[in-house]
């Protein structure tokens, strides 16, 4: 993996980005907690600039099994894609938790698509909206879409499969207390989006540095 140093993040930019994601996901986790009625445990976020291939490899290594993702595109001064990813085997468990755990299996299977999309929508929208507010920009967020497959399948959407295209890869793990549910949130952006994001992050750092 070799990344052009011109788009590499400085320590301050990486720090600011991790903090933005941390605030966004923490807020979103509080919404999920309301839906599920159990505490959501979060990891410290990780921020990396990697190629799309590398991002798929990282996901594949963490979870070699089939994955399910809720995917939403965001568009504005910065555009990219946000994914809420679970191992396929955990997705029914999540649906069961969200629907209250009283439903028979066939109903849960029937509801899976819809419940995943709604859960993803609440988490990803909550996270993206918080980040957009902190950056003082508005983002258009697409409707949720469910994708199933390997890490490569998830990151190989809409024809943007150039092997060397660079992705800003942010992820944060979450788990539900006392339930066998875990997953993570990833965000992908390409080169022009990353350059735009660097500018907004720079503005944010400058604002916070005023008279501090």
């Amino acid at each position, binding site marked *: 993996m070799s990344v052009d140093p011109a788009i590499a993040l400085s320590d301050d930019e990486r720090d600011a980005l991790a903090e933005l994601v*941390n605030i966004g996901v923490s807020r979103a986790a509080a919404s999920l907690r309301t839906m599920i009625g159990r505490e959501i445990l979060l990891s410290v976020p990780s921020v990396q600039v990697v190629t799309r291939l590398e991002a798929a490899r990282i996901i594949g290594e963490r979870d070699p099994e089939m994955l399910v993702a809720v995917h939403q595109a965001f568009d504005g001064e910065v555009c990219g894609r946000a994914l809420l990813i679970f191992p396929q085997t955990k997705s029914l468990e999540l649906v069961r938790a969200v629907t209250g755990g009283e439903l028979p299996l066939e109903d849960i299977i029937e509801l899976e698509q819809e419940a995943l999309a709604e859960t993803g929508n609440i988490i990803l929208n909550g996270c993206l909206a918080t980040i957009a507010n902190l950056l003082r920009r508005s983002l258009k967020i697409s409707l949720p879409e469910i994708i199933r497959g390997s890490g490569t399948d998830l990151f190989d959407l809409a024809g943007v499969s150039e092997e060397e295209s660079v992705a800003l890869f942010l992820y944060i793990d979450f788990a539900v*207390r006392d339930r066998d549910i875990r997953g993570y949130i990833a965000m992908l952006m390409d080169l022009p989006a990353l350059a735009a994001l660097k500018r907004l992050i720079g503005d944010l*750092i400058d604002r916070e540095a005023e008279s501090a």
Partner: protein
Amino acid sequence: MSYKVLIVDDSKLARMSVAKVLHGLHPDWTRVEAANADEAIARARAEKPDIVLLDVNMPGRDGLELAADLRALDAGMPMAVISANIQQEIVARSHEVGAAFLPKPLTEKALANFLLGAQARLKSTAT
């Protein structure tokens, strides 16, 4: 009366944000910063802060564990946990260790209210 405030957060940006709000309210107060729990304990021992503002989600020991350790060092020190993680478990655990809970991003109003209470407490223990 000028106080010394310890700000603990693994993110430099987050420390800057808190410092900025604090500076706006009390430009004459002294700030001490730490980026993790171990550093915070060392700084608390060396600098004897009057008030602590701390983050929850940090690598290593998290802010709630740190708050309990700091509480053991100083039973009466006003502390506030600052986090975007507004889940009731986090808020409840903050209160259990005797810390206030302030949502992140921190507003001037939220910090001002906490500091008013903190100052009152510090004055009453000083006399």
